[in-house]
């Protein structure tokens, strides 16, 4: 908290005397600096935000003695791989990883497909009850999840799916957010394209697949990214639905692993790294898409 406050103070000190509009000239008093004075605020602020993660990465290679030290040190010669070794030899982390991968990828594919279908119907088809149905769907976006928690648990118990991966997959097959986002995107496409395809002899279904979806790639990427992020990181519902070790997802496994082995912090950090790595790599590979996807959450607001 203090860090946040000090960063803000740092910003304001720079802010009030000189806030160049656009790439305006550097104001007097800062000329002696060989670089833009904004770096003095940007560098510490962003490093501070990324610091815990960097430490996490370092710590996964530390021995228990190094862990306590500040500033954090690892001598390259003494990289400790014990954490990772322990993780792969003595825990079921590969199962957890696989579980997470199955749940996330099934949900991503299902969301892209089902949200496209529903979004397209809402955007382009005229049918009775479309307005009300869309309204109800949007309203479910603001239902706090604890409200549905218990009945959902009972439903899956009756379906015999509790404590299986199905209980994690089924609720995330379609998200109202995705339906709404794709509907908006489809509305922004010129209808003449679809009419032209219609006159060329395409059926509705074929128009959706050959004309609309190829054009909707950016929106589909957003849906995929948001779904992946939410399903990969989710723990509230899995914590309730899953009870056996073998069906743990990665975050569940990491949490349960931590409570069991307080004595092995580097292994815990290694588990954290493994849980974060896939999302991190995806983020670095498609940062623009990620940032846009996250920001698109506010579009509806």
């Amino acid at each position, binding site marked *: 908290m203090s860090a946040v406050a000090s960063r803000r103070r740092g910003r304001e000190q720079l802010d009030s005397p000189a806030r160049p509009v656009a790439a305006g000239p550097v104001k007097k008093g800062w000329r002696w600096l060989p670089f833009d004075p904004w770096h003095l605020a940007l560098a510490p602020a962003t490093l501070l935000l990324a610091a815990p993660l960097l430490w996490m990465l370092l710590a996964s290679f530390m021995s228990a003695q190094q862990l306590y030290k500040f500033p954090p040190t690892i001598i390259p010669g003494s990289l400790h791989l014990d954490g990772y070794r322990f993780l792969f030899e003595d825990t079921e982390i590969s199962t957890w990883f696989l579980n997470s991968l199955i749940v996330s990828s099934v949900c991503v594919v299902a969301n892209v497909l089902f949200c496209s279908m529903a979004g397209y119907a809402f955007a382009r088809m005229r049918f009775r009850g479309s307005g009300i149905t869309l309204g109800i769907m949007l309203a479910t976006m603001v239902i706090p999840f604890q409200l549905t928690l218990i009945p959902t648990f009972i439903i899956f118990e009756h379906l015999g799916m509790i404590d299986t991966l199905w209980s994690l997959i089924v609720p995330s097959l379609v998200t109202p957010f995705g339906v709404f986002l794709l509907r908006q995107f489809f509305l922004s496409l010129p209808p*003449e394209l679809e*009419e032209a395809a219609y*006159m060329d*002899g395409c059926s509705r279904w074929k128009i959706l697949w050959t004309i609309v979806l190829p054009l909707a790639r950016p929106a589909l990427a957003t849906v995929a990214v948001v779904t992946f992020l939410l399903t990969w990181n989710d723990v509230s519902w899995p914590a309730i639905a899953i009870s056996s070790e073998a069906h743990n997802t990665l975050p569940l496994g990491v949490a349960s692993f931590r409570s069991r082995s307080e004595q092995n912090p580097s292994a815990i950090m290694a588990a954290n790294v493994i849980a974060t790595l896939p999302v991190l790599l995806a983020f670095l590979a498609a940062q623009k898409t990620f940032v846009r996807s996250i920001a698109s959450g506010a579009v509806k607001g």
Partner: protein
Amino acid sequence: MGAIHLNGVSKVYEGGVVAVDDVSLEVRDGEFMVLVGPSGCGKSTLLRMIAGLERVSGGQVVIGDTDVTHVAPPDRDIAMVFQNYALYPHKTVRENLAFGLKQRKAPKALIEERVADAARMLGLEEMLQRKPSQLSGGQRQRVAIGRAMVREPSAFLLDEPLSNLDAKLRTTMRGELARLHERLGITTVYVTHDQVEAMTLGTRVAVLRGGVVQQCASPQELYRRPRNLFVAAFIGSPAMNLVEARIEGGCVRFAGLAIPLADGSPLRGAARDVILGVRPAAFTADGPRADEALPRIEVVPDLVEHLGDEVHVSFGLDATPVQGDAVLAAEEDVHATRLLVEDAPRARFVAVLDGRTAPVAKQPMSLRVDNEQLYFFDPASGEALGLAAEPSEQPAAA
């Protein structure tokens, strides 16, 4: 057979808005029919009903010998070119051209052949591998037309295909479209709001307003013998000069002027209020070469525009300008010549004179008026007066 018959076709939208009102129209086989009118006149809706993209609320659409009123668009054997071209952005030009035939499961060899033919005819051979985003406006336009061509349909439907091009390209493409139609001889229905396009392209032109066909005739006929005030004001550029006038004693009187009616005019014996229409080209500058037999008027031009071959001279007359909603509707949408400085309720006239004359603004000059080229309309109904006496021209004359 590629004739299209519309029998009492109507379109009523939810909420009772009538877009097309009981339109009956025949497009003959091989004809180039232009639907023209201000925006919102129902021309596009009518075209989309022929295409099958819009449901018909009443009446019949017949293509060839088949009633297609309830037939889905792909089964109507027609092709359409859209205003924004509607090229598939993720497909190459070749794929765009081939798409329609592919959907119809045409044999590969046939597709290849047709695509190659169309590409050659439209000069697209070099760019078959490109995506639409890499093409210029004119090239996209060609691809859109080519996509309709390869299907070899019994009719083409074109919805304002030139409106996204710049003025110069539009003129070029207009000529190409006319040549293409001549070559292929396929029935074509063409929608535009531009009366110049309508006049230059159409075998016949149907002028629409408020979902009703005002007149359907050859361009010459429309220009020479407009059936009502709206058509008269809509067709022709610069627009016809319109003014309130009175016919009495064989003369038409307005603004203190009296112009004798032409000898054969059926209105010579009448005595009534009319709306007088004078085409800008009916004026000539008075001079040694002017026809002495024509009546002469004195005017003071307040604006002179030299366009090279011709000179546009505008002048005011002390008469009540016609402000019937018909004329206003036509003017607002087509010419958009709203005056920045609105002066007294004086009628403004434009005369188109020979480019060799040299009128000067504010200098009085005299003009001869061809009294054979005067048009008269009923002030209440806007219907043309005195047309019945002349023999009806054959529409295919052009």
